[in-house]
Every structure is written in C-alpha cells, then in structure tokens.
C-alpha cells in the first residue's frame, strides 16, 4: 500500500512549543512570586498591589491566553489519541476555540477587577 500522508497543518505543533517555552518562564516566575517568597500569604491587597504595576498587567495579559491555548491545544491532542470521527473532530475543535476565547475574555475581565483594587 502506498498511502500518501494527508495534508495537514503543523501550526498546532509549532504553537504548542512556542507557548510552552513562554509558559516555562512565566510559570517559574508565577510560582517564585506567589509561593517561594518569605511573604507567601496571599490576599486581595497583595494581588491588587501587584497589579498596580503595568509590567505585571502585561505579564498576565500574555499569560492568560498563552496558558489557555496550551491547555486546550494539549487537550485537543489527547482527544486525537482516541481517533474521533471527522464530524466529532470538527465539533470538538470549534467548541475548544469558542471556550478558549470566552475564558480568555473572562480572564481579562478578572484582571481588570484586580487592577481596580479595593
């Protein structure tokens, strides 16, 4: 049998790695700041104080969609392990995109809530 491989896209593969590299740095920083400091107790004031800084706001604005893309694209790959039928594939893919964008928007809304402070 001489089957030609189906033409596909490697963007999912590529962006999983690009967001992965970003997240590696972001998560190390995220854990360092929130869990590996002497003042490790977190409350509303601590979070709003951190979000007074524009640099931190920009950090979270990139962190949220990068994390969600990586999470849902990863979930997509796990679903792919089970070889779903084409119709199910299309539905699930559309659902993951809608959910990803919606949760990103919700995440941005939460960031705004924290920047407003107490």
């Amino acid at each position, binding site marked *: 049998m001489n089957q030609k491989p189906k033409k596909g896209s490697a963007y999912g593969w590529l962006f999983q*790695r690009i967001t*992965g*590299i970003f*997240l*590696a740095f972001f*998560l*190390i920083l995220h*854990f360092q700041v929130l*869990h*590996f400091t002497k003042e*490790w*107790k*977190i*409350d*509303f*004031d601590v*979070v*709003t104080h951190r979000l007074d800084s524009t640099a931190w706001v920009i950090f979270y604005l990139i962190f949220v969609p990068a*994390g*969600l893309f990586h*999470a*849902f694209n*990863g*979930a997509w790959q*796990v679903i792919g*392990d*089970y*070889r779903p039928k084409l119709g199910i594939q299309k539905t699930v893919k559309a659902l993951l995109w809608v959910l990803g964008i919606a*949760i990103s928007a*919700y*995440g941005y809304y*939460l960031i705004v*809530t*924290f920047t407003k402070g*107490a």
Partner: protein
Amino acid sequence: MYESKSGFFKKYVDEVGLNPNVGTWAWFLHRLTGVILVLYLFMHLFVLSSSLAGGETFNKWLSTVQNPVFHFLEIGLVAVVAFHLLNGLRITITDFFFLTKPHKTIFWIAMITFLVLMVITLIVFLPRVFSHH
C-alpha cells in the same frame, strides 16, 4: 499509533506495554500531568472568580485554600507542573535542535533537575504544612 477499542485509561497502559521504554513513559506522564493541569486550571479560575464578589469574599476563599492540607496538595501541584515543564522543554529541545538520538539522556537530565526542584520544594513547603495559623 496502535489502534485499540480499549477504555479511556487502558489505551495508554497498552501503549506503554507495547513499547516499555523511558520515552513512552515520558509521553504517558506528559499526557497525564497535562490533563491534571487543565482540570486544575478550572479550579484556579473558580477561586479567582470569587474576586468579582469583592475583596472580602476573595479573602475568605483564599484562606480556605491556604491551610495545611492545601499546602500539602501544593507540593503535588509543583511536582505535576515541574514534570510537565521539564519534559516539555526536553520535547521542544529534541524537536527544534534535531536531538532525537540523545533524547533519553536529555530525559534523565530533566529528571535530575526535577528531583533537585522537588527537594527545594519540600524544604520550602513542609514547614507550611506543619504550621498552625
């Protein structure tokens, strides 16, 4: 990939059985930790959502998740994140720099880094688990 109609979990176990090498274990654990992290993300989002009801509600939720039991679970979270992060970097390095041949060596380097990180984590987190506040 090997086609089977076995269950949700058995499929992965079969895969490791067919190719019982570190690479397959790394692949399996990467999938497992990935799924755990997606589920964790929703819990994280849920706790953060309490901020919409104001600072006091947020603080109430945060004090619930900052007790010794949760600090103990956080050690597990660090382990899951650290494995996924280090093995993810291994995959990226082998892909981008054509280092498929020494991928097992890179895996073990990642695992030594993992162990060092976990020792540091235990030193930092264990006092919190046993602190009464």
